[in-house]
Structure formats: C-alpha cells, structure tokens
C-alpha cells in the first residue's frame, strides 16, 4: 500500500480497459508519468493503444499533467479522453 498511487480511468477508457480505478505500486522512485504509461502499456495492446493515443489526457492530483510529471506515493492519477457527443 505504501508506494501506491491511485489511478482513475474515465469515459470509454474505463469501458475498454475494463477498469474504473485501481491502486498501483510505484516500483521505482522517481517515476514519471511517461514511465507509468509505459508500465501500464505492458498489460497489452489495448492499454498500449489507448494510453498512447494523442487525444488521451492525464491529470495528477486534479491538475492537468505533462509526461515529465514526477509521481509520488498517494498521488491520484486520472486518464480521460475527449468526449464528443451533444
């Protein structure tokens, strides 16, 4: 639990990844957002594709974050896609 971050997936990411939120252990410190995405992408093609899509955005602790953001334990990470309907 100690090194965990919590990850949330929104909209069709939650559907396609079949995961709404999870606790994820940080295996090394410091871990950047880019490294987290790499680790998650190892879970399979669908993870690799969805997290790699240019339109998928990410927030850390409720603030939009860039790939070089450094994660620390207890952080809350959210991945969300644009939605288009109206």
């Amino acid at each position, binding site marked *: 639990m100690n090194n965990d971050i919590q990850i949330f997936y929104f*909209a*069709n990411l939650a559907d396609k990844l079949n995961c709404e939120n999870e606790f994820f252990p940080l295996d090394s410190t410091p871990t950047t957002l880019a490294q987290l995405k790499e680790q998650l992408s190892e879970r399979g093609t669908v993870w690799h594709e969805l997290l790699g899509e240019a*339109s998928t955005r990410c927030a850390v602790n*409720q603030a939009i974050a860039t790939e070089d953001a450094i994660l620390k334990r207890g952080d809350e990470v959210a991945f969300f896609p644009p939605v*288009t*309907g109206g």
Partner: protein
Amino acid sequence: MTETIFTQQEWLRYSRHIQLPNFGAAGQTKLKQSHVVIVGMGGLGAPVALYLAAAGVGKFTIFDGDTVDETNLQRQVIFNQNDVGHAKALQAKHHMLALNPHIHIDAIPDFFQPKHEALIDQNTSLVLDCTDNFNTRYLINDVCVRQKVAWLYASIHQYSGQCALFTPGHACFRCLFPAPPESAPDCNTAGVIGVLPGLLGLFEANEAIKYLSDLPLELENRLLLFDALKLSVQKIQLAIDPQCFCQTGEKGKFSSPQMCAEVQQQSISVLDFNLHRERANTTVIDVRTEAERLGFNIGGQHIPLQEILTLTDSNNHWEKNRQYICYCQSGSRSEQAAQHLQACGLQAVSLDGGLLAWLKHASKTQMLHP
C-alpha cells in the same frame, strides 16, 4: 414613474432571482444586458436555451442547421411531436419566446461555420458550445480566442460528461485537447441516456448564469468530469500549453480535421436495401446484440458482430456467390461486419444509416411493416 430597466411584468417574473442573496437586481440586470450565442440546439442546447431564456438573458443568437427528428425527442426537451421535420433553430426560437416574451432571439437555421465568425465579437458576452462534434468545437475555440470571448464547452458520451469554461488569458480548448479523438464512436457506443445531456446542459447553464452575473466561477480554467452512473465528479485544473496556437498564433494540424464521416463506403441505401433483400441470392444479417434483436428487428438472420469477426476464410457456412447485407442500429457495426466478410472473400455490404435510416424512410412512406 421614471424609465426603468425592467417592466412591471419582468420585475414580477424575475422576483425569485431578484430576492436571491448575492444575485439580486444587479445580477438580473447583468443577465438582461447579456448577449449569448448558443451553437447547437440538440441534447445540450435544449436545456441551455430553455433555462437561459427563462432566467432572462436579454439577447440570444442560436445556431442549428438541422431539422427535428423523431429520435431527438428522447432528450431534446425543447421540442415536441409537432416540431418533427421543422428547422431546429426556428422551432427553438418559437418555444423560447413562448416561455419568455421579454427576450430577443436571432435564430440562424444553419450550422456554425467560419462564415459566421463575424457574429461573435466584443458585444458577445458568452458562447455556449452545445454541438456534437470536434470540428465545430475547434472552430468555436479559435474564434473565441481571436475575439477574446469566453465560452463554455460541454460534451457527453454514454454515461460520461465533460464541461469547462474557457476564458481569455487561460488555457484554451486546444491546450486541453490538442488532438481530436482518433475514432468516431460506432452506433453501439453512440447511444446516450436521455438525461445526461440535460445534466451537462444545466452545468453549462449554471456556469453561464454565474459568469454573466459575476458570481464566483467553479469551472473557469477547469474541466469537470462527470459520471452519471456513479454520480462522481472530478474537477481538473487546466494549464496553458506553451506550444498551443493560443500562445504561438500558429494553428496545428487539426485546424480542420476530418473525422467522423469517412467510414461509409461499400454500403447501400435504404431504397436499394428494400429492393435487394427480396432477391433469392441475398441474405440479410442483423449484426446487433441479442437484446437489440429481441427489442426490434426487420428480419434476416441474426449473427452478432462479435461472432462475424471470428469468421475466417476457411469457413464453409458462407456462400461465395451470395450477397450478404448487414444491418445494425445506425450503420457502423454493419460496416465493420461487411468489411470483415469481404476480407474473408465474401460479397457483403452494409445498410447505410442502419435500422434508424430504414425506420425514418418507412415512417415517411407509411410502410412500417417489414
């Protein structure tokens, strides 16, 4: 009596606003002196238009190039059965004025396009995005960045919604989403629970009223992520992207993206479908889910898309010289099915627009029985 901003009737009508702490006569006056532009009169635009008209926003410009359709009535509550077939912008104006005759409305029965840019200027208080596509959102964003006008974004997908207020000097929509989504939702995922655009439209209307009346804002430079199933809300602080066009003045490769349309090839029209389906060498296949099939169908064999996608070219249940016509709810899954069957060496097409197009055609020609 000296001349007043409000008439006797208006003062009575808006009394619940005027008596509201922190809003009052000052807030109501600001609403009356505001000019808002609503782009899109669909699921989001319907509640936005109704509530802002009721609230007493003084002037509106509303855009929509579409006509009211039977399937709209499940969520676009500004319209009723009698509006079907008529221009959305004009019908919406009619209903807004019926609700509140003290407001002024310019209804433009056209989709918002670059030629309309001049209609958004320094006299525009706020633009409300109630569209259903990224092209128009990028256009609204670019015009509002240039004209330094604030705008509200809202959008929905199935059970999820997003809303944000973009104001000059903060992150713009392209800072948030520099790239459009890569794939258009298919007809299975394009469904929507009817109240969701209502909820998001009211988040927009709520933020609009606060913005127009100078109340504290919660969504300025923040993105609201809403989940209708869990009723969960997250608010994400946005940040200016230094590479974004709002900073550099250079638009990226997505100034006019082509996205949601280029899927329909190898498809047939409803008319051709009705002609071909009776032929002996033709098999119609419903590729929808079991639940959809049981809910309503127009005949043919039932083979869900997932099953079709497992087919390999060695399968002998299929005939090479038979014409297979696939259909689904709106034509996207059947397109996928037809493409897969073609890849397996079979002759297959998809019903363009799906069951919905077929039903619309049938209701026009009064032939509702398959």
